[in-house]
């Protein structure tokens, strides 16, 4: 009898364990993302059906080529670069990052903190140090709502920098708007790119997977394009970009969702290849640690050359390149929202230097690049404030950033708080693993304009206002 009771208890535990994943993909969160998407689509379609530089789109320049050098950080300096420790009253800033199994965005806030620490050792903001208070969330709307309120009302942060969360933009957009916060974030959900209170230093998975699909088509993918994304809130919208792009190219688009972490990578590899068919294209949207078992399973089963493999940004990570064998040389096209981590360019070198000194435990990756850029932009904005540093002046400074240059980006970055379709970073490069390193494969190219995305409108606005120019 004891054994039966015990066995039932164990199965109960198993069932409870199985329920855990469902929470992270709550229908309400998905609905919210979908609603945001619907707004975007309507607005874009009302202007005109999209034409684009898409699959065959010619590459333009290398990252930051031609951009002004005004914001490039000098070696050994951060912020004001005085070399003096800041000792005044702290300026409080907040940040929230998702941290769940196989999705750890704290690398981003961690790198932002490392940069702020460097700023504090270099005079801070006119002698005042930045106190960067970070919180982690587990894709729970109630939790993240409480965290934003806690940071704003209890900790009394003056602004939010470097938020990188699966649900923050959807859940807290009304709260931030009501309280006058303009956030410099690393966007994940589409709401981060459609609400005027956010501007993201990256372009997020929707546009990045689209960039991956463009690279796959340029590399010769034909017939079918398969996009595979972790099953999380907003996944349908993320995948819709690749599916729409496939249709535009006269191909069949297939959207697959996969539980993360992947627990049978070999099976998934077989399924993906069967779905794509010989010579088809596959775009993956997993983090570096998340995608590695799948890539290794693909190689072990001899599937590397069956289709054209591409990915969104996260695997642009030296540890991924190091872990892959030469079988993958030039065969995994990663859409990189930022330059390669060993590009040797001044800002990238500076980031590596800051990470080494202030955040050596933070993996060097595209997430750390996002944290670095968020903190860089925020610091420059704070240093430009004339008069008192208050919540109002901080958020005014954030939303006034225009044409911020860095060699990590293809084009200068700006905060757009007027249109509500903020995709300032909309030109990317393609990188590939080669002999244990990530190397640039394609120069900067424009992410495809589709009827269902607002890039056509955004680029028209940029041209008119002289934004994203350099």
């Amino acid at each position, binding site marked *: 009898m*004891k054994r039966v009771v015990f066995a039932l208890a164990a199965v109960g535990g198993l069932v409870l364990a199985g329920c855990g994943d469902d929470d992270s993909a709550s229908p309400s969160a998905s609905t919210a993302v979908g609603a945001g998407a619907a707004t975007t689509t309507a607005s874009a379609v009302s202007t005109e059906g999209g034409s684009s530089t898409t699959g065959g789109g010619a590459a333009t320049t290398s990252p930051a080529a031609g951009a002004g050098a005004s914001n490039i950080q000098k070696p050994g300096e951060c912020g004001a670069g005085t070399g003096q420790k800041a000792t005044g009253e702290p300026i409080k800033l907040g940040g929230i990052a998702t941290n769940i199994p196989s999705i750890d965005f704290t690398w981003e806030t961690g790198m932002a903190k490392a940069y702020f620490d460097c700023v504090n050792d270099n005079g801070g903001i006119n002698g005042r140090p930045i106190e960067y208070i970070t919180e982690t969330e587990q894709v729970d709307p109630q939790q993240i709502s409480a965290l934003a309120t806690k940071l704003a009302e209890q900790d009394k942060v003056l602004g939010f920098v470097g938020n990188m969360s699966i649900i923050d933009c959807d859940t807290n957009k009304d709260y931030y708007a009501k309280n006058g916060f303009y956030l410099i974030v690393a966007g994940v959900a589409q709401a981060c790119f459609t609400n005027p209170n956010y501007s993201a230093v990256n372009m997020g998975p929707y546009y990045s997977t689209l960039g991956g699909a463009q690279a796959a088509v340029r590399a010769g993918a034909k017939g079918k394009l398969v996009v595979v994304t972790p099953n999380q809130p907003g996944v349908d919208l993320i995948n819709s970009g690749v599916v729409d792009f496939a249709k535009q190219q006269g191909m069949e688009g297939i959207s697959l969702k996969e539980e993360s972490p992947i*627990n*049978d990578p070999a*099976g998934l590899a077989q399924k993906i290849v069967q779905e794509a068919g010989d010579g088809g294209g596959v775009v993956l949207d997993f983090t570096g640690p998340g995608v590695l078992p799948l890539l290794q399973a693909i190689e072990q089963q001899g599937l590397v050359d069956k289709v054209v493999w591409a990915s969104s940004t996260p695997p642009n990570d030296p540890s991924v390149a190091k872990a892959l064998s030469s079988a993958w040389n030039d065969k995994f096209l990663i859409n990189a929202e930022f330059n390669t981590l060993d590009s040797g360019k001044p800002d990238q070198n500076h980031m590596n230097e800051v990470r080494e000194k202030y955040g050596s435990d933070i993996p060097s990756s595209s997430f750390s690049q996002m944290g670095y850029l968020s903190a860089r932009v925020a610091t420059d904005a704070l240093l430009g404030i004339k008069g008192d540093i208050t919540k109002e002046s901080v958020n005014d400074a954030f939303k006034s950033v225009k044409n911020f240059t860095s060699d990590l980006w293809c084009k200068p970055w700006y905060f757009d708080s007027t249109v509500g379709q903020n995709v300032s970073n909309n030109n990317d490069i393609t990188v590939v693993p080669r002999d244990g390193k990530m190397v640039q494969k394609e120069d900067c190219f424009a992410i495809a304009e589709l009827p269902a995305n607002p890039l056509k409108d955004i680029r028209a606005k940029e041209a008119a206002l002289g934004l994203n120019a350099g």
Partner: protein
Amino acid sequence: MPDFETLKPFLVLGLALGGVFAMSGVGLVVLYRATGVLNLAYGAIGAMGALISWSMIDADLNQWLAYATCIVFGGVATLIYGGVFGPPFAPREPLVKAVATLGFLLILVGLMQYVYGQDTHSITLPTSNWNYDLGGVRVSWTQIVGTVFPILVTAGTVVYLRVTKVGTAMRALANDREITAMLGVPVRRVEAAAWFGSGLVCGISGLLLSNLVGLDIVSLTFLVIPALAAALIGQLRSLWVTLIAGFIIGLVQSCLTAFSELSEYRTMTPFVLAIVALLWFARGREPVRT
């Protein structure tokens, strides 16, 4: 409906994965029968061993030494846990003993996160590079080992339990611990053998799974679930039924990948099969009155 050609690679993958689930399940059952402990930290111990192995390879140490260390770590870590926590928990209910191993699991996961962080790690056994074509399906020696070795381990364990003194003592412990102790059987030593043996199997499973599934802390830690399901289907008693259940779980889970409509739900396979089996075992029994 996928045809046989489509299913062929999934059958091969399912056999290998199921084999490792089965071997892990057998390890769990042997330990449970001898000590009354359902070791929920099984996957985490395997993951830790595999990560240690990765560290050694990364430090340019001999890879075979690294693989051996993974297996020995499984045995030693399990033995230490059993030696320290086994005696004080011995008189407690099985559920309490199982929950205690959850604590061990959390310590190991925390330690792995602290030491190895979220960086990418991978191990490629030499056997994973030895491939050949079987009816149009690429089969690696790691998959063959994953399929055949669990059968040998199970057969070896059955023989060991039948013909050796320690094995006989383990079976006696499983039947009645107190009477066995009164007969002069060195209970602690027999239990230690069970902990160590089960841990060695755990180390082997961790090494194989780090190749078949990937060296990911969370994935490997929670791969105890299919092994546990196999053990439950074997009613925590039958090694052969556990072995077969492990293979079936692996095969069903893998083949479901090929069905577009069901693919999303394939990770539920261990839960569904375990629940169906338990309901089957419970048929005809009187309901518990409270």
